[in-house]
């Protein structure tokens, strides 16, 4: 059975005193268990809308989203979310307390949750930073706390919304390399959103390319058959890059020129 399935999903925003805006229209997608799925698309194409609906933060205005066959009702601990910025961290808690937050909500005994939180802090390379508060840590470290925090909660899958986009270039490369190892070590399915072709190929088993918004939908899918060792300079990597680039170029131009199709009229 598919892990996630989107069936003819539609999201229309109806702002007060403004024309309705169709963010996604007839969106169809399936992902499989264990898959590292990257949803790639130009900025403003509705990627985050898709993730927010999957996370249960927003409701689709049409169609159905299911996880392991059952429809989504609001946020839940089966779908843990890693956000782009650091404003989702609990600044009044230490790194360790942030990581054990989900376990604490579930009433896991203190000693056990400490141990598990430490394990995941180690896994993301943050051992010894237990007692620091988020504002005392660098951008890369804060994203690591977010990753450890969701992993410690052992969700069915991770939803990641451009988690490395706000980091500096060097840190981003490092985090991308480590993210694959972390996802493999934790044996978790990932739904990863990005606008960066490189990042999608570095991380994904499968890449879905979205059309430019509004009324965006999935344009095509590409299976990434590269092995565990991925290098941006390999010719196989370049081949995939070319394929993805060809698919997305037209969409990027559409959104960059600011000449998207007119939004369809809604009744």
């Amino acid at each position: 059975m598919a892990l996630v399935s989107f069936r003819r999903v539609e999201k229309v925003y109806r702002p007060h005193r403004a024309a309705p805006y169709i963010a996604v229209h007839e969106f169809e997608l399936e992902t499989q268990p264990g898959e590292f799925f990257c949803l790639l698309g130009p900025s403003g194409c509705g990627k985050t809308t898709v993730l927010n609906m999957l996370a249960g933060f927003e409701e689709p205005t049409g169609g159905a989203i299911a996880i392991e066959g059952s429809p989504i009702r609001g946020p839940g601990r089966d779908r843990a979310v890693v956000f782009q910025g650091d404003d989702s961290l609990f600044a009044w808690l230490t790194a360790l307390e942030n990581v054990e937050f989900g376990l604490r909500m579930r009433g896991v005994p203190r000693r056990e949750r400490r141990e598990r939180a430490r394990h995941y802090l180690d896994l993301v390379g943050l051992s010894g930073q237990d007692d620091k508060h988020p504002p005392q840590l660098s951008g890369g470290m804060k994203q690591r706390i977010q990753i450890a925090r969701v992993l410690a909660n052992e969700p069915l899958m991770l939803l990641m919304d451009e988690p490395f986009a706000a980091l500096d270039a060097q840190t981003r490369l490092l985090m991308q390399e480590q993210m694959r190892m972390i996802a493999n070590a934790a044996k978790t399915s990932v739904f990863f959103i990005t606008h960066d072709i490189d990042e999608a190929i570095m991380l994904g088993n499968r890449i879905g390319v979205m059309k430019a918004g509004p009324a965006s939908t999935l344009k095509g899918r590409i299976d990434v058959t590269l092995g565990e060792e991925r290098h941006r300079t390999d010719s196989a990597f370049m081949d995939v890059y070319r394929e993805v680039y060809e698919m997305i170029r037209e969409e990027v131009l559409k959104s960059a020129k600011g000449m998207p199709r007119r939004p369809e009229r809604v009744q």
Partner: protein
Amino acid sequence: MSTGARIEASAPASAETQRRHSTRDVSALLAYWPYVVGFVGMFVVWHIVATRLFVSVLFPPPLPVLRKAGELIANGQLLVNVWASLQRILLGFALGSVLGVFIGLLVGSFLTVRRLLDPVVETLRFIPAVAMITVAVIWFGIGEFSKVFIILYGTVFIVIIATAAGVASIPVNKPRAAMSLGASRLQLFLFVTLPATVPYILTGMRLAMANAFTTIVAAELVAANQGIGTLLWQSRLYMEVDTVFVVLLTLAVLGFIVDRLFRWAIFTFAHHYSPVG
């Protein structure tokens, strides 16, 4: 002499660190010199104005005022009145703060509650606590409760508005993250909304406390047997100008101390996190 020499020889390192410590302390103190000068200067200017520029029995210089303060402290009169006022302030302020935080969290969290209470809060808060003295005396007489009520009234709206603003400023990703980690609505409230709002609550309480000092004096001027405002009013009646100034000085010092305590609390409980970040 020989003992002294031996000690010095055996512990040169600690002596060295001690010297370094003391120079650091001195330079830390030196950084505060404008502060000290400002404080002392206030009294110097007061002294000069009262003894040279505006000599009058109606405007005593600082020394007689301080002498009078010593007298009133010695016979217990000052402390009894200060304590009477402080009790009213603390009780009314504590009740008003608890109520204000509770209502503020609800107003900030639930749109319906906000729409229900907005008209109430946004109109009642413009009736100054001082104006409510009349009503309080009519309703509750001149006993303790009327003063506690007035302080409570003056506190509650400031704390409600500060708390609700704090809740509104929580970035949407914080509750979203908590819910994705499995927090229930109640847990969200207790472990995210409340702690994220603490710096705003403390700031609101700090403002409310300053307000409470103003209000209590006014309330006691009108209706009280005891208290710092009563002392002020009685000394005016008996033309004890020195005592009037002792009361003013006491209010300044008390306010300063309480406000510093709040600043300290805000820095201690909130220093390691900015409310929003």
